[in-house]
Every structure is written in structure tokens, then in C-alpha cells.
């Protein structure tokens, strides 16, 4: 029964990874940039949620929406200031800038606020334990899963049924052709950053509620793992990020369940290297040969 409980924990953790991975995958799909700063947007979202719950005394759902809104603005600012001038630069230059932005946010945040961790209050969400098949399931993990699934459904709706979603798909398919068709590419890219960052903000609040402790460097490891999740599902593919995130969460929980909890962080990177070697385009991707 321990195993079922670990699986449920894994799915909750995985849904947080999936939310972050969606931002990575959408940004990569549209500008071919690994947005290293995404993990730090997640961190900022977590802190915004923390302050709106403890200082402003807002209820959970309002804090979640506020955090998503702040992160969306933040994501667009990062894109406009740091990435937009590099649209036509080399991939390496863009990647290095992304690493630079990530470090600037982390250490700028520590400089302004200090490095001390904070703890989310325990009474944000009502807590019941539900017993199914002898496994004790925390109601919080179910709620986190519910929030993630709801956000993913909204995202699918935006991407497939709205005008901006259509523009996003067009730009990621071929930015030049989209521009010729009268799509405002810059605005579409900003919208992508806004949506991805809002999802990271939601993940940040969910992470705080679930794991209690938050700190300025908390975004690094979940950020990297979410990227692994995005690669696992096939980078640039939205359903791939969801499945990859859940799968990675479950793998990590199983690794801890079998008693190798110190290897937990290593498991994600081993999965990454195996995936890159054997299935470089991910579970859902199609392999494209380079043509000259």
C-alpha cells in the first residue's frame, strides 16, 4: 500500500513538473530557446503566492490567480528586455543570455530580500486524509492535481480554439510565413511567454502549499527537471510536456520508494541522457533528418 501512496505523491509532484514543463515547451516551440529563467519565474510565483496569503490574507484561489498574473507580466518583461533583441542572434548567444537572466533573477532576489527560506502556512487548504485501498491520500495532493488538470484543459482550449492560440501554432510552425500572413509575431511570442509564465506561477503556489518550504534558489532544480520532462515528452509538443511531467514525477517517487532517495535528483538526469541518446525527439516527437 506504500506503493500506491508513493504513486499518488509522484503524480502530485509530476503535475507540478508538468505545469513548469509546459512553459518550457511552449517557449521552445515558438522561439527555439531554452528559457533557463523559467525556473526562476516559478520561484517568483511561489513568493508572490506566499506574500499574498500571509501579508494580504487572500484566499488560496485569489492568491493563485494573483501569482499567475504577476508571473505573466514578469515573463513578458524578461522576453521584451533580454530575449527580443536576440531574435536574430545565434543559438549559443541566446542560451547564454538565458543563463545570465536566470542568475540575475536569483541573486538579484537574494540581494533585495535575503536568502532566508519561508514557510507556507499549513492552513491554506483544508486537509483531510482519504483512505482508498488502504492508502492514505492527502486531500491537498488531490487539489493540486485538480488545479493542474484544470489549467491544462484551459491551455488546450486556448491553444486550439482561440485566435491567439491559432497564431501561436502558426508562428511555431513557420515564423516568417506567419508574418507574411499578417500575424503579429512579436505579440504572439509575448503571449506565449505570458501564458507559460502564468503556468509556472501556478506551479510555484502549488509547490509552496504542498512542500511548505520555499527559498530564492528553489527554482533551479525543479526548473531543470521540468526541462527534462519537456524533453521526455518531446520538446515543443504540449501534450508531451504533460505526460513527461507526470511520468518524471512517478519515476522519482518510485526511486525514493525503493530506498534510493539520495539518487532521486540523479534519476531525472539519467532519464534525460537515456532519452536523448535513444529517443532524441522524445516520446511524442517525430524524428526529422537534417536536409541541406
Amino acid at each position: 500500500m506504500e506503493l500506491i501512496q508513493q504513486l499518488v505523491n509522484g503524480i502530485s509532484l509530476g503535475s507540478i513538473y508538468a505545469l513548469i514543463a509546459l512553459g518550457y515547451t511552449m517557449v521552445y516551440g515558438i522561439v527555439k530557446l531554452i528559457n533557463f529563467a523559467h525556473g526562476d519565474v516559478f520561484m517568483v510565483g511561489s513568493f508572490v503566492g506566499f506574500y499574498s496569503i500571509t501579508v494580504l490574507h487572500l484566499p488560496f484561489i485569489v492568491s493563485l490567480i494573483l501569482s499567475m498574473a504577476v508571473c505573466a507580466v514578469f515573463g513578458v518583461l524578461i522576453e521584451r528586455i533580454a530575449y527580443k533583441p536576440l531574435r536574430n542572434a545565434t543559438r549559443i548567444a541566446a542560451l547564454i543570455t538565458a543563463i545570465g537572466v536566470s542568475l540575475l533573477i536569483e541573486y538579484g532576489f537574494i540581494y533585495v530580500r535575503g536568502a532566508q527560506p519561508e514557510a507556507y502556512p499549513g492552513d491554506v487548504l483544508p486537509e483531510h486524509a482519504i483512505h482508498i485501498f488502504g492508502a492514505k491520500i492527502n486531500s491537498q495532493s488531490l487539489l493540486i492535481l485538480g488545479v493542474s488538470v484544470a489549467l491544462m484543459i484551459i491551455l488546450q482550449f486556448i491553444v486550439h480554439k482561440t485566435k491567439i492560440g491559432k497564431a501561436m501554432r502558426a508562428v511555431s510552425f513557420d515564423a516568417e510565413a506567419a508574418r507574411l500572413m499578417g500575424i503579429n509575431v512579436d505579440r504572439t511570442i509575448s503571449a506565449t511567454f505570458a501564458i507559460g509564465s502564468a503556468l509556472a506561477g501556478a506551479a510555484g503556489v502549488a509547490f509552496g502549499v504542498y512542500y511548505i518550504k520555499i527559498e530564492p534558489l528553489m527554482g533551479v532544480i525543479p526548473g531543470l527537471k521540468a526541462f527534462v520532462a519537456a524533453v521526455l515528452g518531446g520538446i515543443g509538443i504540449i501534450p508531451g510536456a504533460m505526460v513527461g511531467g507526470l511520468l518524471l514525477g512517478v519515476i522519482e517517487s518510485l526511486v525514493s520508494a525503493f530506498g534510493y532517495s539520495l539518487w532521486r535528483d540523479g534519476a531525472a538526469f539519467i532519464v534525460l541522457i537515456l532519452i536523448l541518446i535513444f529517443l532524441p525527439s522524445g516520446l511524442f516527437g517525430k524524428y526529422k533528418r537534417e536536409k541541406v
Partner: protein
Amino acid sequence: MAIFKQAKFFWASIVVSLVLFAVVQFLITGGMLNLFYVNTLVFIAINIILAVSLHLIIGITGQFSIGHAGFLAVGAYASGIITMKLELPFVTALIIGGLVAALAGFIIGFPSLRLKGDYLAIATLGFGEIVRILFLNLDYVGGASGMQVNHLTTWPWVFGCMLVAILVIVNFTNSTHGRACISIREDETAADAMGINTTYYKVTAFVIGAFFAGVAGGLYAHNFYIIQPSNFGFLKSFDILIFVVLGGLGSLSGSVISAILLTVISTFLQDYPETRMIIYSLVLIVVMLYRPQGLMGTKEITSVFSRGQKLKGGKKDGKGQTVA
């Protein structure tokens, strides 16, 4: 005639560096440099070795590796085991540290160098993290609390290793093999089509780079009294990366200059780690936005003295792919 000139230039630079070495050595033995400055000099030399070893991988061959601290860690731990557990002399430790790191470079490079660009970067990042976690879980080398290592690194050792690293990499770059690597950086598909065995050259560059990173790891380990897995995290890889990028991708002298500059700056900012990281990251962003080719571009400092024919690899910036 040209060959004669080149050889003259080569011997001249050897003499200049030996004079530099002798002067510093004289100052150290004469007690005119205090421990702080000696330590800074040792650090500069170690960072130069790291910078030129990564320069060979990123700047010359164009393979974007951001897990260099992994090789540093492998070399550091391997050489630490040699001196502390097996009690063999320091020179064996350095060589074996380098060889083990080279082996790690081969093991990781052979499969992952099939990947390109961003994917390779992420794979090497993952490799660096796996190495750190591996040492964290190995009780033989002390786990998270680290391993005790004697202080054996001295100025002659680091200078000698630095000189060998620079010589090997300069000569490699100017050889047939180096030209092949440059052609891979410029256009891998074209190089392949011209009959260059791209996998072979990529792995070779990776293994040589890893070897010198391992030697640097040996020097690094024996400069401290203790090594811990946390010394070899992503930030360390990033420190090495910034030397190469700031100096100019493809310029060896650029990497050396920026290694010297940044080591001096970070030594003075040691007491303010946050400020240091903020300055580092701002410098990195500003350089990428306004001078993406780095301080020196692909030029070498030597080309200032010898105008005319030189073997630049044309304009760098690998694939020339655009973002968006």
C-alpha cells in the same frame, strides 16, 4: 621563411613565459608576495587551464558543453584518491586525474556528441549533475562532507601544467586535426560532406578538453585541504563557460585574458558573493546583447604583432542559425 618566422615566434613566447615564471618564482621565494597573492596566482593559472580546455570544445569545435565542472570533479576526486588513499606522488595523481577525466569525456562524449546545439548542452549539464550526485553518494570519498586532501599544489606545478595545456591546445588547433575541428564548428554537414570524420574529431576534442579539465581538477583539489561535491555544481561550470564566452568564442588568448580578469575581480568580490553573481550575470547579458562575439571575437592577441596571413577560421558563430 614563414615557417621559420612562426618557429621564432613560438620560441620567443616560450622564453617570455619562462621569464614570467622565473620572476614570479623569485618573488615567491624571496617572500615579496604574501600568501593571498600567491593563492590568486595559482587560481588564475588553474582557471586558465580550465578556460583553454573548454575553449577547445566550444570555441574551436563548436560543441556547446556546459558540464565542464563534471570533468573537473572527476579529475579532482581521482587525483585525491591517488595521493590520499594510494599515497602515490603528486605527478602520477595529476596524470591519472587527467586520464580518468579523459575516459569520462570519452564515455559521455561518444553517445552524446551525436546530439546538436541545445540538446548537447542539456545532456552535458545533466552529466555534470550526475557526477556531482555520484560523489555525493560515494562514502569512499566522504560523501557530502567531502574528502581531506593534502596541500601539494605549488606555483611551479600550476605554471607547468598551464604551459603544457596552452601549448598542446595551440598546436592542436594549428594542426590538420584542429582545422578539421574548425570546419565542424563552421558547418558540420559541409565538413561531413568533405570527408571529415566529424564524430572522431568531436570526440577527440572532447577527450583532450576533458583531460586538461581533469589535470586542473587535480591542481584544484590539492590547492585546498578539502574537496566537496558542492564545489562542482552548475555554477562552477557556468564560471568556466563565462571565461570562454566573454573572451570570444574561438579565441584562445581571449579566454586566457578573461580568465585572468574575472579571477582577479572575483577574488576581490569574494566577501560579497551575491554582488559577484549579479555583476557576472549582468556582464554576460550585456556582452551577449551588444558584443555577442566576446572581447576578442575569433582574433588572437598574437595577430596584433604579426599582421597578414594567419589561419583564422573565418567568421565564427557556428551554425548561423537564427532564433525565431
